[in-house]
C-alpha cells in the first residue's frame, strides 16, 4: 500500500481561486518521486495543502496517509502520523534554540503516538542522536544553541530543515525547493542526507523547478506539474528531457 496517496486533490485559496486542479499521486516507501514544474504552477501550494496549511482548502478529493484519510486533520496531526515538509522559506522562531525546538517537536510526536501521555525522549539519547545527525549533515554544532532560523543563511536554513527531517524520521518527506539557495557542496550533503533516509520506512517527494537536485537523488518517478495538474509522468529520463527542453511545450498544452 502507498504511504501517501492523493486522490483527485483540488486546492483553493481563501478567496476561492483554485490553484491545484485534481492531482492523483501515490508515493510508496523506498521511493523517490519528483514533482517538477515551472514557477507559479502550484506545486508549493500542493505541498503546503498536503501538509495541512490552513490558508489552502482542499475543496475536492482526499489525502491518505498509510491508508488513513487525513484530509480533515490539522498539520500537527498529520506530522504526528509521519508527514514532513521541508520548507522553501523556513520561518524564524526567535528565542527558541534549535535544540530546544527539536526536542519539543520529538516529544510532541512521541506524546501523540503514546495516546496523549507524555513520553519524553531521554536527554542523553536525544543529545547523542542530534550530534550524530548534525555531523552527518555537516551542520555546524554551533547552530544547535542558536535560535531556530534566526539570522541563518539560506544554506543553514535548508540544512536545518533536513536535520529536522533526520531527527523526526517521517514516513513521507516532502521537500519544497530544498535545492534553491544551496551551493553544490551543500546540495550534495543535503541530497545525501535525504537519500540515506529513503528506505523501507520512508518515501520522499521532491518538489523542484530544476533538475539539479535530481543529479544527487535519482527519482524513481517524475511528475511534470503545470497549471495545477500533473501533465506527464515518467522515469528519471523525463527530468533530463525537461532540463533540455524546458516547460514551454507543456505550458502551451495547459493553456
Amino acid at each position, binding site marked *: 500500500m502507498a504511504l501517501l496517496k492523493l486522490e483527485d486533490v483540488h486546492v483553493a485559496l481563501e478567496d476561492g481561486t483554485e490553484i491545484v486542479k485534481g492531482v492523483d499521486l501515490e508515493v510508496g516507501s523506498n521511493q523517490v518521486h519528483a514533482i517538477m514544474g515551472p514557477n507559479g504552477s502550484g506545486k508549493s501550494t500542493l505541498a*503546503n495543502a498536503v*501538509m*495541512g*496549511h*490552513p*490558508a489552502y482548502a482542499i475543496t475536492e478529493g482526499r489525502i491518505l496517509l498509510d491508508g488513513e484519510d487525513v484530509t480533515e486533520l*490539522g*498539520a*500537527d496531526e*498529520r*506530522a*504526528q502520523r509521519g508527514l*514532513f*515538509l521541508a*520548507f522553501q522559506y*523556513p*520561518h524564524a*522562531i*526567535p*528565542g*527558541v*534554540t534549535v*535544540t*530546544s*525546538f527539536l*526536542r*519539543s*517537536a*520529538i*516529544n*510532541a*510526536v512521541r506524546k*501523540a503516538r503514546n495516546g496523549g501521555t*507524555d513520553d*519524553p525522549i531521554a*536527554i542523553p539519547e*536525544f*543529545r547523542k542522536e542530534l550530534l550524530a545527525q548534525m555531523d552527518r549533515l555537516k551542520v555546524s554544532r554551533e547552530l544547535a544553541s542558536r*535560535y531556530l532560523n534566526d539570522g541563518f543563511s539560506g544554506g543553514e536554513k535548508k540544512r536545518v530543515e533536513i536535520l*529536522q527531517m533526520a531527527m*523526526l524520521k517521517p514516513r513521507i518527506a516532502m521537500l519544497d525547493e530544498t535545492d534553491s539557495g544551496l551551493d553544490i557542496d551543500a546540495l550534495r550533503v543535503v541530497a545525501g542526507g535525504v537519500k540515506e533516509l529513503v528506505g523501507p520506512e520512508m518515501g520522499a517527494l521532491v518538489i523542484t523547478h530544476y533538475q539539479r537536485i535530481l543529479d544527487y537523488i535519482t527519482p524513481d518517478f517524475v511528475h511534470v506539474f503545470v497549471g495545477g495538474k500533473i501533465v506527464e509522468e515518467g522515469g528519471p529520463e523525463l527530468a533530463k528531457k525537461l532540463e533540455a527542453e524546458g516547460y514551454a511545450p507543456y505550458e502551451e498544452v495547459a493553456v
Partner: protein
Amino acid sequence: MTETETEVVEGIGSDYGIKYGFHVPEDYFFKSGRGVSHELVDAISSHKNEPDWMRKFRHKSLDYFYARPMPEWGGNVAEIDFDNIFYYIKPTENQAESWEDLPPDIKDTWDKLGIPEAEKKYLAGVGAQYESEVVYHKLQKHLEDQGVIFLDTDTALREHEELFKQYFGTIIPQNDNKFAALNSAVWSGGSFIYVPPGVKIEMPLQAYFRINAENMGQFERTLILVDKGAYVHYVEGCTAPIYSTDSLHSAVVEIVVMEGARCRYTTIQNWSNNVYNLVTKRAVAHKDATMEWVDGNLGSKLTMKYPAIWLMGERAHGEVLSIAFAGKGQHQDAGGKCVHVGANTTSVITSKSISKDGGRAGYRGLLQVDKSARGAKSKVVCDALILDEESRSDTYPYMKIEADEVDIGHEATVSKIGEEQLFYLMSRGLTESEASAMIVSGFVEPITKELPLEYAVEMNRLIQLQMEGSVG
C-alpha cells in the same frame, strides 16, 4: 541543552487551582476586623510593640492615605472596597526557625509551594510570609557570621533600630502615592537586608509571600541596603488562593545600592486573578553601583508596578527587565523608571508584554535625564505580543531629557503570532497551543535567560500555564 527545557515540557498540563489556588483553614493567633482606621493602626503598632516614632509615622501615613484621591490613570482601582479588606492577620504567635515548628496547615502550604525544598537546594536564606507576618525566617550561618542581616522587617526594627531609621521611608516617602501611604500606615512583614562592604552573596535570598484568607490585604515592607562593593540577589515569589471576591497586595520596597555595589531584585508575581497588586518599588544607585530589577508579572487581577532606579552617582548603571502576561480578566500595567542624575550613568529598560483572551498588558515607563547627567546613555526597548483580536496592548513611554551630550535609544514593536509561524511549528507535530507557547517562551527568552535556572524554569512553566488559560 539544559534542564530547563525538560522541566518546561514536563510542566505542561499543570493547573493554578491545584498548584497555587488552594487554601487551608484559618486558625490564627490574631485577625483584625475588616476595614482600616486609626484604631487599627494603633492595634497593629501595639501588637508589634513598636517605638513611638513608628506609631506616629503610621498614623500620619493613614492621614495621607485618606487625603489622597484615587489615581485615575493606569488600571481601574475604583472598585477596590477598602472597607471589606482584612488589614492585619497574625497567623502564629512566634516566628519559626524550623519548618517543623509551624502549624501543620501552614507547613503543608509551604511544602506544596516547594519552598523548604528550594531552600535546601539553592537558597542562601528564606523568609516566608503568610498573611501579615513572616512565619519562618532563616539565613545561612556563614553569611550571618560575615555580618549579613536578613530578617523580617518587624524584627529588624526591634534589633537594628538605628540603621533601620536611617533609611526607612527615605527612598519612598510615606506620601509618595496613595498606596505607598496605605502601606506606610499598616505595613507588616517583608524583608530587611543589610550586606556589609565587599560581601558577595553567591546564592539568592528568597522571600515568599502567601495570602490564604479571603479579602486579605497584604502590606509587606522591604528595605535592602547593599554596602560598598557588596552583592546580593533577592528573589520574591507570590501566590494566593482563588476567591470570588477581591484581595489587595500593596507593598513598598526601598533599596540603597552603595558605591560599587550591585543588587538584583527578581520578582515572579503569580497572584490569583482576584488580587489587586499595587506596588511601589524604588532603588537608589550610588557611584559605580548597579541596580537590576527583573520583574515578572503573570498573575493578579490588576497590577500597577513600575520599579524605579535613581542613578545618583557617577557611572551608576540600572536595568529593568520586565515581563507582563495578561490573560482573561487581567490587566498588567507594568514597566519601569530610570532617572539619571549622576554623570555618565547608564540604563537599559527591556519590557516584553503578552496579552491573550481579552487581557490587557502594557508598558508604562519613565526615562528622565537631569541636566547634571552629562554623558548619560539609555536604551528602552518595549515589545508587545498580542495573541488574539480581543486582547490589548498599550505603550506609554514617557521621556524627559534635560542634559546635553546624551545617547538615548527607544524601540517599540507590537506583533502578533503569525499563521505561517504557527503552521511551521505545527508541521513538526506541535499542537496549536504548544506552538503558541513556544513562540511566547521565545519572545520572553531575553529576560528568562537572565534568571537563575530554577526561576527560569518556574517562569517558563507559569507561561505555559497561562497559555493553557487555566488560570482563574
